[in-house]
């Protein structure tokens, strides 16, 4: 009976049911997870450090003198503190949300539990909602940690409640959006980091939208002559809304009146709901495919291993050429050899056309420095991720026993893998070298930029390759290997001040900014050579070679390591 059926369906969809068993499971898992403890600790640490910094810089350590001056300083400190905490939350939590949800579905697929879920009465929408709510609970916790702080700071006065409320609402709506996007992506993409990258890319695009808006509407952001375009576009980018909201706190940033944050939050939540519904539909399909065999098509067909399948099926047998490990990993990393050069060519062309359209750009050192920094960052990150992946797949597919009983020794395996990984980013480096040479030749860049590229790119590659391969060999799954490599790379580059000196991205950017035509420039060159080139050659080469060597030693030691005993498990 149709009527009866729809009633039953409705009953099963009841909102309370919607978050039933999956939320429960997620919460129970999450509370035990080591990374969650780490995340909470890190969060509190970052908040404390930035608070301390603000406090000492505004109020100072001097003798406590009562008086109007001191009160005003405290109010100022209070305002800055609140702004800082809100900003940190606003920028960090959506990223955390994207990362937390990035393996939500691919994890179940990897474990083969998706088909099992299909046989239970749990509906796919319940799974999606459960994952989203279950994992975002952590964010609620993180915000809750900071709320008492905000309340205390408010005592010093000068902070309107409206700002805090708006900030928290914006943070949550953006986090939910990033989370649903990441979740949706994880129903197509086989690897967690791919979903996280998709979600983060969308956030970056929204940020770019804000930047473009800021360029197009110079002066105070929300001037009375606010165009309609501006108002409409603002609805889409949380960053624009956040900046406007900042105006309520700090008049220098703009006027906060009429900030459409309520409309923006509602819109974002509506979009998130649509994303979740889509995710539920695709999830259902993924489950069916998982249960009855076949392959996930759609975007996975373009990105993941399924692409290779289809691609492999199209062609006849390929003959092996060159060293065998190099050949195999190249097939794995780059099933379409033309794709990378083509992408780099398109991006480069776009960049030059855009730079040509906006005249001063190519004459500005800063533009070149930014470009070089981005290329180096992307290239090195890709190298680290590929290295981690190329090594961890061997374990994931349980191929070490057969590989290590061939005549290949560990050194050959590591070298050939490294070569396959390095060739994947080759087009990027060719672009960078060509770009630098040309602009150094026409005297826009100082020749020291070439030195920077020549020193930092190879040493950075060595370091990131070593890190990636080492963690790829220690971790039990590709996802874990990539996550650990990321954590270590970020930690090395941005947390340790010593390592920042040896940071290849910073090094390349600096080398692009130096102008050796005057005395100060020449002094800068000298300092650069002493401060950066030296430490980099020592630290990066030493660390990189050390990690590669360790990777080589690890291979045999951890062939049969069980998670928890020898290898790094959860």
């Amino acid at each position: 009976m149709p009527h009866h059926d729809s009633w039953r369906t409705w009953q099963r969809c009841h909102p309370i049911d919607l978050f039933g068993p999956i939320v429960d499971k997620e919460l129970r898992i999450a509370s035990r997870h080591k990374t969650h403890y780490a995340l909470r600790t890190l969060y509190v640490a970052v908040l404390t450090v930035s608070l301390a910094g603000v406090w000492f810089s505004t109020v100072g350590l001097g003798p406590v003198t009562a008086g109007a001056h001191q009160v005003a300083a405290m109010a100022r400190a209070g305002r800055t503190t609140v702004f800082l905490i809100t900003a940190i939350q606003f920028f960090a939590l959506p990223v955390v949300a994207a990362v937390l949800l990035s393996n939500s579905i691919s994890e179940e697929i990897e474990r083969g539990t998706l088909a099992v879920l299909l046989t239970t009465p749990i509906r796919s929408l319940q799974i999606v909602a459960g994952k989203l709510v279950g994992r975002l609970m952590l964010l609620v916790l993180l915000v809750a940690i900071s709320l008492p702080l905000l309340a205390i700071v408010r005592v010093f006065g000068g902070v309107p409640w409206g700002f805090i409320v708006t900030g928290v609402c914006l943070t949550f709506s953006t986090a939910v959006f990033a989370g649903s996007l990441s979740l949706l992506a994880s129903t197509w993409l086989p690897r967690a980091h791919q979903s996280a990258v998709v979600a983060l890319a969308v956030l970056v695009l929204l940020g770019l939208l804000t930047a473009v808006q800021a360029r197009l509407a110079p002066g105070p952001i929300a001037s009375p002559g606010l165009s309609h375009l501006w108002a409409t576009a603002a609805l889409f980018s949380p960053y624009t809304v956040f900046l406007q909201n900042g105006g309520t706190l700090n008049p220098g940033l703009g006027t906060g009146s009429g900030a459409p944050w309520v409309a923006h939050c509602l819109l974002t939540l509506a979009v998130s709901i649509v994303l979740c519904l889509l995710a539920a539909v695709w999830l259902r399909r993924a489950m069916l495919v998982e249960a009855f065999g076949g392959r996930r098509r759609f975007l996975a067909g373009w990105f993941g291993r399924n692409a290779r399948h289809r691609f492999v099926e199209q062609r006849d047998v390929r003959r092996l050429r060159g060293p065998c490990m190099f050949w195999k990993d190249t097939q794995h990393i780059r099933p379409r050899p033309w794709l990378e050069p083509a992408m780099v060519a398109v991006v480069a062309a776009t960049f030059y056309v855009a730079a040509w359209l906006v005249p001063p750009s190519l004459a500005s050192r800063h533009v070149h420095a930014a470009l070089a920094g981005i290329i180096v960052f992307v290239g090195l990150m890709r190298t680290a991720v590929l290295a981690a992946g190329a090594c961890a797949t061997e374990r994931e597919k349980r191929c070490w026993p057969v590989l290590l009983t061939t005549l290949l020794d560990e050194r050959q395996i590591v070298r050939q893998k490294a070569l396959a990984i390095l060739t994947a980013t080759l087009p990027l480096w060719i672009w960078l070298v060509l770009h630098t040479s040309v602009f150094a030749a026409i005297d826009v860049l100082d020749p020291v930029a070439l030195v920077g590229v020549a020193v930092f790119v190879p040493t950075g590659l060595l370091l990131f390759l070593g890190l990636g391969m080492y963690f790829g060999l220690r971790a039990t799954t590709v996802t874990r290997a990539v996550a650990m490599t990321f954590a270590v790379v970020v930690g090395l580059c941005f947390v340790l001040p010593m390592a920042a000196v040896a940071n290849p991205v910073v090094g390349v950017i600096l080398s692009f900014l130096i102008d050796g035509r005057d005395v100060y420039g020449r002094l800068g060159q000298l300092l650069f050579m002493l401060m950066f080139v030296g430490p980099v050659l020592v630290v990066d080469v030493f660390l990189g070679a050390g990690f590669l060597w360790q990777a080589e030693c690890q291979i045999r030691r951890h062939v049969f390591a069980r998670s928890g005993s020898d290898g790094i498990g959860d």
Partner: protein
Amino acid sequence: MIETHKLSKYYGDLAALVDLDLHIDEGTIFGFIGPNGAGKTTTMRILATLLEPTRGRAVIDGLDVRLQGKEVRRRVGYMPDFMGVYDDLKVFEYLEFFAAAFNIERRKRKDIVEGVLELTDLQGKRAAAVDSLSRGMQQRLGLARVLIHDPKVLILDEPASGLDPRARIEIRELLRELKRMGKTIMISSHILSELEEICDHIGIIEQGRLVFSGTLDEIRRRIGIQNKMRVRVTGDPQRAVEVLTALPNVREVRREDGYVAVMYAEGCEIDGSIARALVQAGLDVLALEPEQLKLDNAFLELTQGIVH
């Protein structure tokens, strides 16, 4: 061909292998049998140069496994209990990859790969993706890979587990063929009857210790000592037990659900004397049937004493 002397492996406190002494002759098939967790895989991994033994020595073809790893690898084909496959390679590519990993020259590779494909009857699957193969096919591909460098010794860890009966028979045929080619094969299983037809020698391992080693006949003789007769009588079975225990050549008598089981020495015709004795004691014989011990039961009897 393969010898181990007091081979031991400890995982922390856990003794996975204790003083194992094996001796496997050239050109024979050695069945290595034991329940799960007995230490079969551990032994094979040591022989395949993947694990370092804690103590002891293993020698293959006169080469020390620990010291001459590379030379040993040249002579040994090892098929692990769980074969990893690369999902982005096809059958031919997969085999050519391993051919190259064994330093086989490029121009010889094609013929060699075609050769092993023919031997394992996989020619039709040359262009199939490796992970699209059925379990039976994958095991055959595993065998093809093991054969690619023409090793003298094959170490196969549970190659027949998870296969359907037909695929098992195919694997068995393949192993016979390989034996004819003069290879020494060490094969493990937790089911004795699976190997009974093809093995020349059997070693039974239990909790890391070798509890029996010898030919199939020897194992039959050793357990066959306890040939068994099942008797059903009218009246008091306890009385029958007393009567039968007194007979010569009878080793043990016990009651088993409704029957009286008589274990007697190998090679004596005992049924006549059983019937006579029972009738003389005033008990009517309802049934008297011999029970040859199955190899699997024998295996259970051999290993049970150690488990408990």
